[in-house]
């Protein structure tokens, strides 16, 4: 009986408790209004928990109105809400980049951020999508410390990406891009930023060594968007706007041009070049306006759908990008589709397949400089009295005496376009026979076909100088088939309470095959579009073709261990075998090891946890390689050419390159130390890292010594020399929220110091960029090497005193107003021994500043990027200031150039002859401070949630590259690498000229989710 009362009492209490509870329902979404399944709910102070379903919905009972519910999910900041009088809650979780439980992709695996022991930076796709760019790496600029991105203008242009400086002189400096686990080479032009879920930058060798022989320039892992279980969601993103092309120079009008030319002639003792300049008043040809569009439209659009169940998820996106060129023809158009399906057949067996068809079409003239350089007196078209009525449509243009081909005519003739078709299929099978053991096999096939068509119509603008007597049609077809297959077994287990370990072993196989075919013909009957086919050619038909193949086979492994979440160790090992090398060096090993100490988890740090949110020390070591040299360098080749033997010109063959059977990879050995920290609940967070990379066995294409008997242009690839890069990466983030106002700022700071440690001999000098750069031991590679322009001779006394100790003039042809070149070695002669270091293309440091603000439904993003301490060779100085050429000049040159004592100390007098070689001697006259600060992006947006029948509607207005602060007087301070075909990729860095500028762009954006 007694028990009955007790039972009754318990039942009564339970009922009472039940009666006192409040049922709260609601939905949890992210900022993009996408429901988040699996969010954990805890009613604070109770044992009550719950989680959201596939559609982000939840139901939870709370004891009273004062109850607080805490929502938490990996990758998002925790949020606590007091129930109050509400019974329905619509919760928006904000993503947190600082969450230690966040998953980071590390190469053949994904681990918690807290378990990462090496230098990896992660960028969310959403951060990249704030900009509308053709190549997504451009929007990476300034967002990751240790990564230097140099923008390049023009549709389809690829920015230069350097991760922790350079580690090679002759090979590619581009990082390896790995998309969804598949190495995709050194360009991701094919990828839309709307397809990207996240990007991980593997900066040090302990992180990238798992990619072995291709990882010396760092690795960028890209994870594309995948489906999420739950209700089918649609997302439509679009932005469109105008890329603005302003003339970087104010060029002279016809009268001013005539005056400048006359002055140059008169200063050299000649008569006027264009007598009576006033006759040209009002007769200026505005070439720029005639051929360059002030604004070129750009459109980026993406339609995506995601959804699925717990057995199957899918993500489909259709992406379109179109950037028109600044000319009336040309541009870059890209259509891509990504269809990702993931299947979970059982708890043990899962699979997935992604299809990625792509189409790109591009091409366009590159002669925008000619619109500035051509003289302003020549008309666009020939005068009527010079036409006889028999000219074809390309022959009615006027010829300029400035030796610049009529740019309007050149654009009119332009017909050189490429269509590219690709299909990538990437699938995997995954089997987990027991808990913690994952067997995974992934394969990918990439099939591509690129067709380039070029037609050069016949025309006669000037019978002697500007003509194509016969039209020419050409076609290139390049096909590639690449495949990758990788198999891994991973076992992860917790031993006891505090030991956590995982081991991954696997192997990969890759093969890259390609072939091309070229056809050529002349004499197509006419220039109409329909006749621009090889079959229509009537003369000199020609063809050629080639094929190539390379392959890589690798064994990979990773062992990770941590003790009690305090002490971490990761070791990786990769063994690569490459078809590019012969038996002696076909295989190479790339080991790495890294440790991490989470200091904050130590007992003695307990008292600091009010302030410190994270404190971790990392150290890593590793070896990576660079095999980016041409295929088949182990073969000897025979070249063909004309060779004078006595008085006879012979058509000869000669050994052009010789095999080096001992050729092997460039090896980069890297050590890195880092400190990660978080303060005040990660309101302030960041990391500070120091690294040092040493490259051994550098690959150089060397000429044979003359005593070898080989012609002096015979070459051989060989492993000689070493170099070192070192520097500091710093990232500091601050974020906070005050009521409806949230704000955050990220600062990235990167320094790079590069030094050549050795070359093939101690005193070897490697020249680049037409002997304008030098690479020697103990110095940074490719520094600017030339004469020191020590101002201008302001008066006769200065000129007379520029002699050796016996009165011999150092510059016998100089006149007052000419450049004074410095006798650097003081030997009383001005010769090539007086050339010295006059600048460096390498920045002292780069800084990125990224601001974001939110107020209620408004958001604002501002990104700044700067490069400080680098120099640029402004090659346009000769075109714009040199009176010796007949090209147009800047309009105020008459005043800018020296025309009397004290009038200028940098721009020499106008001269037709330039006997002093003011402009032909490469000197510091051309070298300018290349530092700049650029506002990369400014975007303001407003979001509507659950309005108009949509989950989200966001409109935005943004401006890219709107402001640039720089002392550089050239076209654009973002100047990249030199010509790789001349071996100048590194040795020719920093040469600015008529490079296509990174254009300011104004865009309107619309994002709809439903």
């Amino acid at each position, binding site marked *: 009986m007694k028990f009955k009362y007790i039972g009754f009492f318990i039942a009564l209490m339970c009922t009472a408790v039940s009666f006192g509870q409040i049922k709260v329902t609601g939905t949890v979404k992210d900022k993009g209004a996408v429901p988040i399944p699996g969010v954990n709910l805890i009613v604070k102070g109770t044992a009550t928990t719950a989680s959201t379903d596939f559609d982000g919905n939840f139901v939870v009972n709370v004891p009273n109105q004062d109850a607080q519910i805490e929502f938490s999910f990996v990758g998002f900041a925790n949020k606590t809400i007091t129930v109050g009088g509400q019974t329905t809650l619509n919760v928006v979780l904000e993503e947190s980049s600082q969450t230690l439980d966040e998953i980071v992709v590390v190469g053949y695996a994904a681990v918690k951020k807290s378990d990462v022991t090496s230098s990896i930076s992660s960028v969310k796709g959403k951060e990249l999508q704030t900009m509308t760019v053709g190549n997504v790496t451009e929007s990476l600029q300034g967002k990751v410390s240790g990564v230097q991105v140099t923008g390049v203008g023009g549709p389809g242009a690829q920015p230069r990406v350097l991760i922790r400086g350079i580690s090679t002189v002759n090979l590619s400096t581009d990082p390896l891009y790995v998309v969804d686990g598949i190495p995709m080479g050194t360009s991701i032009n094919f990828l839309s930023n709307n397809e990207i879920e996240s990007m991980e930058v593997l900066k040090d060798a302990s992180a990238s060594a798992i990619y072995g022989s291709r990882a010396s320039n760092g690795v960028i892992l890209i994870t594309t968007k995948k489906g999420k279980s739950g209700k089918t969601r649609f997302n439509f993103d679009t932005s469109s706007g105008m890329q603005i092309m302003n003339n970087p120079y104010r060029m002279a009008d016809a009268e001013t041009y005539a005056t400048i030319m006359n002055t140059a002639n008169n200063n050299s003792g000649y008569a006027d070049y264009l007598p009576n300049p006033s006759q040209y008043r009002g007769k200026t040809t505005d070439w720029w306006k005639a051929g360059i569009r002030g604004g070129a439209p750009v459109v980026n659009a993406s339609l995506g759908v995601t959804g699925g169940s717990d057995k199957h998820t899918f993500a489909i996106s259709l992406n379109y990008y179109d950037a028109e060129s600044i000319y009336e023809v040309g541009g870059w158009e890209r259509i891509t589709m990504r269809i990702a399906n993931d299947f979970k057949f059982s708890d043990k067996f899962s699979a997935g397949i992604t299809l990625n068809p792509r189409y790109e079409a591009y091409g366009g003239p590159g002669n925008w400089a000619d619109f500035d350089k051509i003289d302003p007196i020549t008309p666009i078209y020939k005068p009527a009295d010079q036409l006889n009525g028999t000219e074809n449509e390309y022959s009615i243009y006027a010829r300029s005496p400035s030796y610049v081909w009529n740019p309007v005519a050149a654009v009119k003739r332009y017909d050189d376009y490429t269509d590219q078709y690709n299909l990538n299929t990437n699938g995997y099978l995954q089997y987990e026979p027991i808990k913690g053991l994952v067997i995974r096999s992934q394969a990918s096939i990439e099939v591509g076909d690129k067709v380039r068509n070029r037609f050069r119509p016949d025309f006669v603008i000037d019978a002697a100088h500007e003509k194509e007597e016969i039209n020419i049609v050409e076609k290139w077809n390049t096909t590639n088939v690449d495949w990758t297959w990788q198999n891994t077994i991973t076992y992860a287990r917790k031993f006891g309470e505090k030991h956590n370990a995982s081991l991954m072993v696997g192997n990969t196989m890759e093969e890259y095959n390609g072939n091309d075919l070229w056809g050529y013909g002349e004499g197509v009957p006419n220039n109409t579009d329909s006749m621009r086919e090889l079959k229509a050619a009537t003369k000199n038909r020609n063809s050629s073709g080639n094929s190539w193949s390379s392959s890589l086979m690798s064994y990979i492994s990773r062992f990770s261990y941590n003790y009690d979440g305090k002490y971490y160790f990761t070791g990786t090992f990769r063994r690569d075998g490459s078809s590019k090398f012969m038996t002696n060096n076909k295989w190479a090993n790339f080991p790495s090891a890294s440790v991490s100490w989470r200091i904050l988890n130590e007992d003695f740090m307990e008292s600091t946890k009010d302030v410190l949110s994270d404190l971790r020390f990392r150290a890593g070591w590793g070896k990576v390689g660079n095999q980016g040299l041409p295929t088949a360098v182990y073969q000897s080749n025979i070249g063909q050419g004309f060779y004078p033997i006595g008085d006879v*010109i012979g058509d000869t063959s000669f050994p052009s390159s010789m095999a080096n059977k001992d050729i092997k990879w460039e090896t980069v050995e890297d050590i890195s130390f880092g400190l990660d920290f978080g303060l005040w609940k990660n309101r302030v967070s960041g990391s500070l890292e120091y690294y040092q990379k040493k490259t051994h066995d550098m690959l150089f294409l060397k000429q044979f010594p003359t005593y070898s008997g080989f012609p002096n242009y015979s070459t051989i690839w060989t492993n000689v020399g070493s170099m070192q890069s070192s520097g500091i990466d710093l990232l500091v983030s601050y974020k906070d929220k005050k009521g409806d106002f949230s704000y955050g700022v990220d600062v990235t700071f990167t320094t790079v110091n590069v030094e050549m440690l050795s070359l093939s001999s101690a005193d070897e000098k490697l020249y680049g960029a037409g002997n304008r750069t030098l690479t020697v031991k103990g110095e940074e590679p490719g520094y600017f090497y030339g004469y020191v322009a020590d101002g201008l001779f302001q008066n006769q006394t200065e000129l*007379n005193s520029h002699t050796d*100790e016996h009165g011999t003039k150092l510059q016998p042809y100089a006149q007052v107003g000419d450049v004074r070149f410095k006798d650097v070695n003081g030997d009383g002669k001005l010769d090539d021994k007086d050339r010295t270091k006059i600048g460096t293309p390498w920045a002292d440091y780069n800084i990125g500043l990224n601001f974001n603000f939110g107020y209620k439904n408004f958001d604002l993003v501002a990104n700044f990027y700067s490069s400080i301490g680098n120099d640029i060779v402004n090659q346009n100085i000769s075109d714009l200031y040199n009176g010796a050429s007949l090209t147009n000049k800047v309009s105020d040159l008459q005043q800018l150039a020296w025309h009397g004592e004290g009038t200028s100390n940098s721009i020499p007098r106008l001269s037709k002859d330039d006997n002093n070689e003011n402009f032909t001697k490469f000197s510091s006259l051309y070298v300018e401070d290349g530092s700049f600060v650029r506002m990369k992006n400014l975007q303001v947006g407003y979001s509507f949630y659950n309005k108009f029948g949509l989950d989200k509607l966001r409109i935005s207005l943004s401006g890219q590259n709107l402001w640039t602060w720089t002392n550089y007087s050239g076209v654009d301070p973002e100047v990249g690498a030199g010509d790789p075909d001349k071996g100048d990729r590194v040795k020719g860095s920093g040469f600015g000229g008529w490079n296509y500028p990174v254009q300011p762009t104004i865009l309107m954006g619309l994002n709809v989710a439903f």
Partner: protein
Amino acid sequence: MKKNIFVFFLALFAILFTGCQSNDADFAPSDDPTVVVSTKEIYGAPSRKFEIKAALADDLGLKSVAIQIPELSLDKLITFPTNTLLTKYDLSYFFEVPANRGTSEAFKIKLVITDVSGNVVNEEINLRLDGEFAAPSITMVSPKEGAVILLSTSNKLPVNFVVNDDSGIDFVQIQCAALGIDETIQLTGSPQSYTFNKTYTLPVTAADYVLTITAKDKFAIPNTGSLNVNIVATNEYPAIFLCDQPKGTNLTTDAVGVPMYFHEKNGQDFEFKYYADKDNKEVYFLGQEADFGPHCFGLNGTGELVDDVASAPIILPTKGYYKIKVNPNTLKYTAEKYTPSSKVWADVANGLWHDDAALRKPFVSVCGGGIKDANWDTWNAWVMTGLHLANNSANPYQLVGEYTLTGTMEATFTGQWWDPSWRLIKNGICTMSPGENGNAKYPAAPGVYKVVLDTELERVFITKK
């Protein structure tokens, strides 16, 4: 307290001051530097360099010497290294007087010598611009350079020359070791002009001689001029030249080709190929290249060939190519017109490059030295269209043009990749490739020249415009 502050600041400033002193204070005191100039008066002239010479010395070390002539915009500072001290320095500094200064002007050259201890010494030198630096001019009347003395005619060598000098002539000297001539004529009264006229007798055996004439003037710093004249004494002519210029023409103003060297020689039978560019062309044969005398072969009153400077020209009746044979000993000649059969290099102007040889438009340009815009790069020869030769519309075998010569000239006339090419060797012969090797150098006064390349004759004529 105030005292302590005072001492502190005193010490601070003392340290700062010591730290900021220049390196001069690092050197011990020493004696003044010394300077010994080679002359206190220097003669100069407009557009002419003069030399400042002085011996500088210092017991501890020299730091610098400044050379100043403010009126002539000269302010040169020569500094010496101070890590290894220099106690002696021989100053030798040349400076050119501006062309616009007057010969009556005079200036002070100031030398400022400073030693490492900071001692400064000044020295002044007078500079006068009324200096006379021209060597006496020697004008040969006879024999001319390259003169041929035909021993079978006469073994006398008349020597006749005139010497002129503004500051007066001190002496004249005639020397020829092979002939035993060594005469010095010491002149009295410093005449500004002197004429020498004397005939020497040569041995009857053939030989080459060099006659050296030297003259010295009477200026404070004497100037000496000399002239070598090469003479060939021979029993037969080594060469005969065809001259189509009227008598009295200066035959040394051309760069090459006038008069024209013979084509073939067999004993004293000389054969020329020649193009008469008009009807009734007048020509002579010369025994020497530089002058019409002493051996000029023309026609006498009866139409016979004679060796006489006063002879009348030989007339080639009609325009065209001739083969002309002449023997200076037998005084016989023949002139026959002929039709050339060599390749015609027509349509050579405005060539265009093409990688495919079959599509190249031929052109003929020039590679060489001493020609404005030319070098030895055939690409340059192509792109410098001003060097391209054009067809002579009147003669398909001639390519004509106009070049600016800048000094001693050498040339190979060339098409694309030396195909075809004509190399200018000695005696104005322009041999077509493969031909003979060795480009010859021809001295030429700077200026604009008319160029005629005759592919039939394989000769080039470059004459002052």
